[in-house]
Every structure is written in structure tokens, then in C-alpha cells.
């Protein structure tokens, strides 16, 4: 096995309990070179505990966690210099200037060669050149996040660990950071990204792991996760004449208690009448599709019922749809321990 085959992060059955709360419950995690892994879940699901365990800041009750082939418990001296971390709330040194912060970490990471030049490069890369002599405490939230990113990449780490990096930052910074991450990944850096911003995760991550109550409930590429939720997610329909909800229910055969996606004539589409959202004027409707039912069946049924359709547009399901579907499944799982407490 050559170095490229060794996972950068290899975790097996990680478990950690804080009092009554099972923060991590047999979590497996593998990150390979050049991957950007999105790690998502509700508050208290164990994201931060996982991240802190990877950084050696939280010890595990059981399981194994290796970074770059080394055990986190004993190998942080070798692991640390290959890691770049962006903590939530920036975690900056308030009284140091932007340049001093970068120079400090250039020295701590023992960057070889001209540290001053490397600092200037990162200042330029992060768009912080004009604020190089400003103290961290005087920076706006967006600039602080740029500085936190600059500090994390100053030593060109193999793995970037990002904790809620897009939380509350301005659009310009968001765009800048998104492009930076794409470039770093293209250059071979791996990224482990925890976030509540599912839109960003959908755009950036090559693989997504959904965590709930300390357990991995789904894992796959964004496309795979979305595919598993619903065929097309739903359709958006504009009618030529106003329709009523009752007409739509009749047309689609919705009757409570019947099967969702059976392939019979006049098959009920959903047991839930919430599957249809009709605009107040009755001219527009959003119809959520049950799993496995193609959107064109909806169109056929509407036309067969004599409803005149002006526009018919399938709605793509999003990572958010997939996320909530998986969480819903997880919530229905009686074997999972119920707890939504925040893990700090």
C-alpha cells in the first residue's frame, strides 16, 4: 500500500459518552486524499465531538482514531503539523495583528524558508493585505474568518478541518472561501467540513455523512443521497384555470390510508394531504412525489382528469430534502437513544 492509499483519517467504532449523553456511538469515518467530506447533523448530533476527537482535544471511550496512519492519542506531534483547522467563532488572538497572527503560526508550524514571504502570500491569497496591521479584534466577522482560514493554510496542510466555516459571513467572503476550498482540493488537500449550511455542503462536498444522536445515519455523494429520497422531489404545476384542492385530490387519487406508490390505475399518490400545496388563487400547485414515482405520471393523471396545465416543471430534490428524510428515518428508529442536548 503506497502513501496515497493510506486514509488521512481512519476511525473505527468511535464512541464517547458525556454523562448520560452518548455523543458518539460507534462512528466509522474514512477520509482519503483530495476528498472534501461534508459532516452534517443537528445540534448535539456529535459533529463537534468528532472534530475535537480528531484534534486530540477529546479522548474516546472506545474505538480507534488514526490520522495519517498515526494514533491521535500518541501521535499529535506528527499529526498537528499536517493539519489545518478553522474553529467555530474564529478562535483568534484578539490583540495580535493579522500579520503577527500569521507569522506566529508560521513559526509554530516551523515553516521552512522565508516565513515573511509566505505570510505575504497568504495575506494576498486571503485578501487581507490592506488590513495586515489591524488587530484581530477590530476585524469584521468576514475578515476574521479569512484570517482564521489564512492561519489554517499557512503551512500548506494535507487535511483541512473546518468547523462551521460559513456561519454568518458575508456573501463576498463566502464566495472567496468557496473558490479557495475548490482550489485547495484540486491541488490535493483533503477537507473535513462540518456545517449546517446544506446548500454549501451540496455544492462543495464530494461525499456527505449525516450524523444523528452520535450515529452515522447516511453516507454517500450528494447525488446518491438525493436519489434515495424521492424521484424528482416533486413537481411545480401552473394551471390555465383555477383548480381546487378537491379536484387535485380526485385527479391524483389521494385518499388517506392508501398505499403511496403502487402502480395501479387511480393509485393514491400520498397518504398525506400535505403532499399538495395549492396557491391561494388555485392557479399554482406544488406536488410532492412519493418515492419511486416518476413525475410524468403526475402529468398524465392531471390531463386525464381534464385539468388544463399551462406549465409543468419537475422540482429537483435537494440535499436538505435528503437530510430531513434521513433524520426522519433515524428519529423513527427505536434503537437510537433520544437526546438532543448540545455537546460541548
Amino acid at each position, binding site marked *: 500500500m503506497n502513501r496515497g492509499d493510506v486514509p488521512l483519517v481512519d476511525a473505527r467504532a468511535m464512541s464517547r*459518552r*458525556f*454523562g448520560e*449523553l452518548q455523543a458518539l456511538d460507534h462512528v466509522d469515518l474514512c477520509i482519503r486524499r483530495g476528498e472534501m467530506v461534508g459532516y452534517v447533523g443537528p445540534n448535539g448530533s456529535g459533529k463537534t465531538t468528532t472534530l*475535537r476527537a480528531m*484534534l*486530540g*482535544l*477529546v*479522548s474516546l471511550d472506545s474505538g480507534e482514531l488514526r490520522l495519517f496512519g498515526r494514533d491521535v492519542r500518541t501521535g*499529535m*506531534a*506528527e*499529526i*498537528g*503539523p499536517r*493539519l489545518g*483547522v478553522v*474553529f*467555530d*467563532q*474564529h*478562535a*483568534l*488572538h*484578539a*490583540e*495580535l495583528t493579522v500579520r*503577527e497572527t500569521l507569522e*506566529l*503560526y508560521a*513559526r*509554530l*508550524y*516551523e515553516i521552512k524558508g522565508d516565513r515573511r514571504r509566505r505570510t505575504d502570500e497568504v495575506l494576498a491569497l486571503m485578501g487581507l493585505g490592506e488590513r495586515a496591521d489591524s*488587530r484581530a479584534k477590530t476585524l469584521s466577522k468576514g475578515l476574521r474568518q479569512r484570517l482564521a482560514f489564512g*492561519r489554517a493554510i499557512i503551512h500548506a496542510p494535507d487535511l483541512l478541518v473546518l468547523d462551521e466555516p460559513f456561519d454568518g459571513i458575508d456573501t463576498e467572503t463566502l464566495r472567496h472561501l468557496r473558490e479557495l476550498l475548490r482550489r485547495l482540493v484540486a491541488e490535493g488537500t483533503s477537507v473535513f467540513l462540518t456545517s449546517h449550511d446544506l446548500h454549501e455542503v451540496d455544492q462543495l462536498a464530494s461525499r456527505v455523512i449525516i450524523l444523528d444522536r452520535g450515529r452515522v445515519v447516511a453516507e454517500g455523494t450528494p447525488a446518491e443521497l438525493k436519489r434515495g429520497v424521492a424521484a424528482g422531489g416533486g413537481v411545480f404545476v401552473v394551471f390555465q384555470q383555477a383548480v381546487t384542492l378537491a379536484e387535485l385530490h380526485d385527479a391524483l387519487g389521494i385518499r388517506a390510508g392508501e398505499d403511496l406508490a403502487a402502480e395501479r390505475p387511480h393509485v393514491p399518490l400520498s397518504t398525506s394531504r400535505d403532499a399538495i400545496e395549492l396557491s391561494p388563487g388555485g392557479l399554482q400547485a406544488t406536488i410532492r412525489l412519493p418515492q419511486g414515482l416518476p413525475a410524468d405520471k403526475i402529468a398524465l393523471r392531471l390531463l386525464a382528469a381534464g385539468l388544463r396545465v399551462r406549465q409543468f416543471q419537475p422540482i429537483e430534490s435537494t440535499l436538505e430534502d435528503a437530510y430531513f428524510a434521513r433524520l426522519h428515518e433515524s428519529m423513527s428508529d427505536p434503537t437510537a437513544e433520544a437526546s438532543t442536548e448540545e455537546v*460541548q
Partner: protein
Amino acid sequence: MKASRLFALIGKEIREALRAGWANLPATAVVTVLLLVAKTPHDSSAAAALLQSRLAIFLPLLAMPFYASTVLSRAIQTERLRGGLLPLLVYGGSAAEVWLAKILGAFVLSYGVMLLSLSGYLGYGAWLGREVLPPWAAVPHVLITMPVAALGLIALQAALFWMIGRSSLLSVIVPIVVMFGGVQLVVLLGLQPISLPTAALAMLGSLALLAALLLAIHHYPRDRAAGIATG
């Protein structure tokens, strides 16, 4: 533990402490002189004169831990609460390296405060026309023995911050206890003679305390240094 990284961290601590509250230096010097003056008998008896001259020897034990407590409170507790401690614990160095830098940063600054306080105390004596100068033989104690002993007291505070984790209350209590406890200690010690073995023992004890703390931090999981709640 690497010297280049340690110096970088000490520089960071000194820079941040000065910027966050440079006025604390002269303020501590003034408070130290006022506390000693308030505790010193104001008569002109020989016993009082002796005590006044001996207090200068022990002044580092009051000024240094008191000023260091304010520095450590910001450098450890405030930095923990704001998250600034976390990146210092993951760059690959030992948590003990980070703690040592904080202790030495506080020590260097508090040594400066001690010199300011000493100048103030001697100036006060000269202004009143009293002989508060310590004997020449005691000067090494003022400049070396007592500051090294004070280092142990600074390490003790750092140990307290390390053990207790996140606590805003601690940041308030420690300086108060050090200030009022320190002045009692200094006046008490001012009545005692200093022998060479006592001085050596004080310095060795201080350094042993520092070493023990660093060993504990190095071997204990980083949760403790980070101040992360462990349930």
C-alpha cells in the same frame, strides 16, 4: 519542546498582555507600594526601621504573583472562553509548551513590575527620609531568590487555572487572594532572617513545582488544558 516555538509563544503572550492592559504595570506598582506602606509601622523605632528595610527583599513575592495573576487570567481563562487556546493546542507542540510560555510570559512582565514597585518603594522611603534600602548582601535575594520563588507561586496559579478549567469567577478570586494573602505573607516573612539554605530550598521548591505542573499537563489528555467540559 522546542526553544524557537517557546520563544514565539512567550513573545505572543507578552505582546498580548501589554496591549490588553499596559496600564496594569504601573497600577500594580502603585498598589504594591501602598499595600506595604499601609502595613508598615509608621513609628521611627529601630524595629520598625528594620522591618521597612527588609520588606524590600520580599517585595517580589507580593508584586510578581499579583501582576502575574491578572496576566494569567487573561492568557488562560479569557483565551479559553474565546476559543483562542484551541489552535495553540493543535499545531503539534505539547500543551505543556503552551503553558510554560504563558507562565514565563507572565514571569518576564511581572519581573518588570517588581522593578517598578521596588523603585516606588525606595522612592517612598527616600521621600519620607527613612532607610528602606535593603543591605547590599540581600540584593541577590531581591533580584534572584525572591523572583524565582515567585515563579513557583505563578506556576501554582497556572496550575489552578489548568485544573479548574473554565471559570470566570476564578479569574476574579485569584488576584484578590494573591493580593491580600501576598501582603500578609510578605510582612510575615519580613520579620524572618534569610539563610542561604532557606533561599536555595525556596528556589528549588519553586522550580520543582513548575516541573511537576508541566509534567502533569504533558501527560494528561488535552481536554483539561482546553477547558472542554468532560461531563
